[in-house]
């Protein structure tokens, strides 16, 4: 079964609205869920998700979301945290303790190998020791040697961002992109994200060996607009495309 991974920034557009949309998610249609913990500097996100962090920073409350973390866990939806290392560096161990206590399976750290490359190995080893998944995050500008080295330190799925940041639309060669990552990491579970919108995007990625897709900007726009029906239809539709 191919992975469908919705993304939400905690606290956006506000706690009540987000909780309402989380309630609407058909849990049998998704595999994992990615929660963005609001960042003070979401520098590798596009304008739509960047804004969610600014608002989420004001609204986020663990007390509010604890029941949702329990809910997804009980329904066997694996949860992953999207957190910038610049935000959690000073309290890294405490933050991982917290995520494990909330039954998260792992963490995606978009700035780790870009801005903190020299610390990357130690952090990944630390997460491995704790039995907590580090999800390698790569982008088109990640050199081949880094993709191989970082991947070899983990056994988890890989998050490959197709665009330089979320929600933008720079032209790229899909076939070449997937061919390259498949050659570098044969047999590895690759989930694609950043800039995926249409059925055809997903179809083509899966046809080329992708293991799943992460959808963020598109769903966030629906929560902003309060488009409940569109939200449910979209998730069902994407599930259908992945199951083709």
């Amino acid at each position, binding site marked *: 079964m191919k992975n469908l991974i919705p993304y939400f920034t905690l606290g956006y557009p506000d706690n009540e609205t987000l909780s309402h949309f989380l309630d609407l998610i058909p849990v049998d249609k998704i595999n994992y869920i990615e929660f963005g913990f609001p960042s003070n500097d979401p520098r590798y996100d596009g304008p739509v998700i960047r*804004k969610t962090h600014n608002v989420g920073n004001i609204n986020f409350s663990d007390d509010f979301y604890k029941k949702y973390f329990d809910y997804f866990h009980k329904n066997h939806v694996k949860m992953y945290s999207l957190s910038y290392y610049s935000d959690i560096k000073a309290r890294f161990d405490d933050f991982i303790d917290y995520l494990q206590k909330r039954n998260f399976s792992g963490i995606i750290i978009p700035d780790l*190998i*870009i801005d903190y490359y020299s610390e990357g190995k130690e952090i990944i080893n630390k997460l491995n020791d704790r039995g907590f998944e580090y999800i390698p995050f790569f982008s088109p500008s990640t*050199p081949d040697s880094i993709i191989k080295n970082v991947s070899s330190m983990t056994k988890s799925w890989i998050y490959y961002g197709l665009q330089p940041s979320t929600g933008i639309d720079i032209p790229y060669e899909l076939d070449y992109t997937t061919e390259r990552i498949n050659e570098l990491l044969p047999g590895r579970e690759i989930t694609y994200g950043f800039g995926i919108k249409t059925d055809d995007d997903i179809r083509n990625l899966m046809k080329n060996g992708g293991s799943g897709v992460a959808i963020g900007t598109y769903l966030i726009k629906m929560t902003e607009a309060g488009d409940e029906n569109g939200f449910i239809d979209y998730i069902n539709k994407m599930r259908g495309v992945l199951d083709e």
Partner: protein
Amino acid sequence: MITAMNKEIIPDNWYNVVPDLPEPLAPPRDSKSDISSINLLNKILPKEVLKQEFTFKRYEKIPDEVMEAYEQIGRPTPLIRAKNLEKKLGYSGKIYYKYEGATATGSHKINTAIPQAYYAMKEGVKGVTTETGAGQWGSATALAASLYGLPSQIFMVKISFEQKPLRKTVMNLYNGNVVASPSTLTAYGRKILKEHPDTPGTLGIGISEAVEYALDNDYRYMVASVMNVSLTHQSVIGQETKKQLELIGEHADVLIGCVGGGSNFGGFTFPFIPDGDDTEIIATTANEVPKFSKGDYKYDLMDSAGILPQVRMYSLGADFVPPTIYAGGLRYHGASPSLSLLINKGRIKSDEVTEEEVKEALRTFANTQGIIAAPESGHAIASAIKYVKAHINEKKTIVVNVSGHGYLDLSIFGEKK
């Protein structure tokens, strides 16, 4: 001497260094919080150029039409052993220079102007626009646009516009429209003129005006340097050099080039990066624009107005107004992200030379090799001479990129009594 007649020397593909970097290249960041300046590039650059800017493909096939144009403008350029210079310096090693001044427009700039104009023409855009410092990039843009039947609007940094009127004539001959920047053609230019009427202009202001002009007039912006795509196109220089060295059984121990934004330097040296660390690589800047020694390695604006995304690079600050030095092409406040990363990681060393060292080097090069090099290229030559003097007993093979000729820059020497 390897002659320019062997077209087999021109590579079939451009080389992109990104997949071979020692660490990930930091992605660009939006310059403003509410809009995506990265997405805005879709309206600023031809689509194929934009795709190549963000690609991780190690090799990109050079279209046949571009290959044909490369031959027409004088590629491959010669690689020449500077025996007279070696003799003058008393050096028992070897000095070669790759001479990009042999192209039709007299510098390396045409290597990326041609493909960018070609892709713009293929997309059916109304015209192209860009900034230029010393005028070499403007000349290349005007010619490339003319070759593909496109109008070109060029914003020339005011101080160069005033100091080098013949450059304007050259651009006009290539059908280019040229104005001094800051100009009254754009809102940003008018703002700068109002606030700083006596400004000599900067490349950052010129870029801002050209980008604004592209957005307002459905033109496309031509990328002179800094952005990766221009370095990729310039890789014809380094790939030719490698092949020419192979043909004569030589190995480059040292590569030296000058750095404005990094395009000639990256194009010349990056194709050697995958071969390992046994070639020493030196990037030379002007003493007056000490971006590598006094700049910070940080995210900064490429243009003064902040329309383009920010990139991580060595920078003296986007508002840095450099002295009105003799080498206009080296006045840019930053350097390309890939070059900056390689400098930061120590793979590439940097050097700075003074105006007097450059003038002396240009004189020496002229009266030993007969080539009057561009002031920008004079920095690479001066750096090579310094290197030779510091390693006089080592029999190394040094290769210098002479990125352009200086026939339109002779005023820097004044009159000899």
